[in-house]
């Protein structure tokens, strides 16, 4: 049964998109920086910019919400809300990462790195949980968000280390792997989405960016990186271009998915049935161990 009225959602605009672009890249940067420097601290510039990116993402979200001064309420629902979880991970990540950057405690550095990965994962799950937006709820979104985050983070790290003259060769080998992972995720994501009931507009927009995303954003940087490893003379130049492409294409892809290909589910008539429906009780009936009791809520907001 064809659905109707699937226009573009307007609740999450470029600001929300920004959180996925910068926050995702930043989180991955935390991970890769940690991995790259372990057991030592990453260069403070690298470390801080990774946090700055995450912070920028969160700032943009804060600018979008209707009741910014209640921002703390975001922490009230860790049990099921991936937004609470992202927020919580972020809150732990910041102090740990800062400590990791300035006091060389390997455990903290490692932990921060893992939290970066967790943060990235949360972002994937946030999108997957939006049942109203076919382009987001597609399960393939999770690996895609992680893959592109890793590409972006690694790409940024490569660029920064190049600037700091501290390049690490293995990054130039892992990035092509991430890119391959991203390309694969992108392709499966798109095929699965096409197979699902995604709005035609959504598919059209994604098809629109497909060639450039696949070739410009994945194949070309992949080839450049291979070339980089084969032509020692041009390594840093080619790797630099490849890294930049990997980052920008990722951001462009995420911006498109969040801000442009986010047509709503739409309405539809369903399959006709006869007779009494077999009804399921409201989930809230199973005495929800999760909900805070009212008093706590009241306290929480004052």
């Amino acid at each position: 049964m064809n659905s109707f009225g699937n226009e573009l959602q307007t609740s999450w605009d470029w600001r929300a998109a920004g959180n996925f672009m910068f926050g995702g890249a930043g989180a991955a940067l935390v991970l890769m920086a940690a991995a790259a420097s372990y057991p030592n601290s990453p260069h403070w510039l690298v470390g801080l910019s990774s946090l700055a990116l995450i912070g920028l993402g969160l700032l943009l979200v804060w600018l979008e919400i209707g009741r910014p001064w209640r921002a703390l309420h975001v922490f009230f629902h860790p049990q099921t809300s991936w937004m609470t979880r992202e927020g919580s991970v972020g809150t732990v990540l910041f102090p740990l990462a800062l400590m990791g950057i300035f006091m060389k405690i390997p455990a903290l550095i490692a932990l921060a790195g893992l939290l970066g990965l967790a943060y990235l994962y949360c972002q994937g799950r946030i999108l997957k949980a939006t049942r109203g937006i076919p382009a987001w709820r597609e399960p393939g979104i999770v690996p895609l968000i992680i893959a592109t985050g890793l590409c972006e983070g690694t790409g940024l790290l490569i660029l920064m280390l190049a600037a700091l003259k501290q390049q690490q060769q293995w990054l130039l080998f892992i990035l092509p792997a991430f890119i391959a992972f991203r390309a694969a995720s992108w392709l499966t994501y798109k095929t699965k989405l096409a197979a699902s009931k995604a709005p035609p507009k959504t598919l059209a927009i994604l098809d629109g960016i497909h060639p450039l995303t696949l070739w410009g954003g994945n194949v070309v940087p992949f080839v450049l990186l291979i070339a980089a490893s084969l032509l020692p003379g041009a390594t840093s130049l080619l790797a630099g271009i490849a890294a930049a492409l990997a980052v920008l294409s990722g951001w462009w892809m995420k911006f498109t998915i969040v801000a442009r290909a986010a047509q709503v589910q739409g309405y539809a008539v369903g399959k006709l049935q006869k007779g009494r429906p077999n009804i399921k009780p409201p989930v809230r009936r199973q005495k929800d161990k999760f909900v805070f009791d009212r008093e706590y809520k009241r306290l929480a907001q004052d």
Partner: protein
Amino acid sequence: MTRYVMIADLNRCVGCQTCTAACKHTNATAPGVQWRKVLDVEWGEYPDVERLFMPVGCQHCADPPCMHVCPSTATGQREDGIVTIDYELCIGCSYCTVACPYQARYKVDKAEFAYGETPMESEAKLFDEKRLGVAQKCTFCADRVDAGVEQGLTPGLDAAATPACVNACIADALSFGDIEDENSNVSELLAENTWFQMHAELGTEPGFYYLWDQEVAAEVAANE
């Protein structure tokens, strides 16, 4: 126990929007905000065309994605299935809005009125600052239902305990009642008619049912 659901009889609905207007009155929603509205849809190609009016709004899902994603627990659910929003907890992140597969939710950031910046007396009287910057949607007129039940009335049968849109519907297309009561008005309507739920496949278990004629449905399917 009790679970409240609503039924819209698509064979009766004429798209008059009386329910839409009644909801706007009862809940004093801002211009452009329609917790209840009725779509005007068309299928097929001339001359084999079907036109259908379809009331939509919050489906008070038994398993509501909006609630699960809500980071502030502002979106809750009552034992009777009514999905609620606590305007004082809500941070206005709109996560619920994108999580809802039924386009049921709205957010208004700044006060707007029918004729611009300044409210008419009637608007001023009902204006509620709490509604700004937070998610809002159909409440199933929970306040009416509760007030009615307190007086020992039966929602869906006694007007004072029944949602305003249902009371107002001029075609008697809308019904409201307790689906967990085998003999309630809604249970009987569903037992006697062919019906569907919207996006049932998403597992949201909507508390909103559509009665629809088999023949018409068949024609629509044919014209697709």
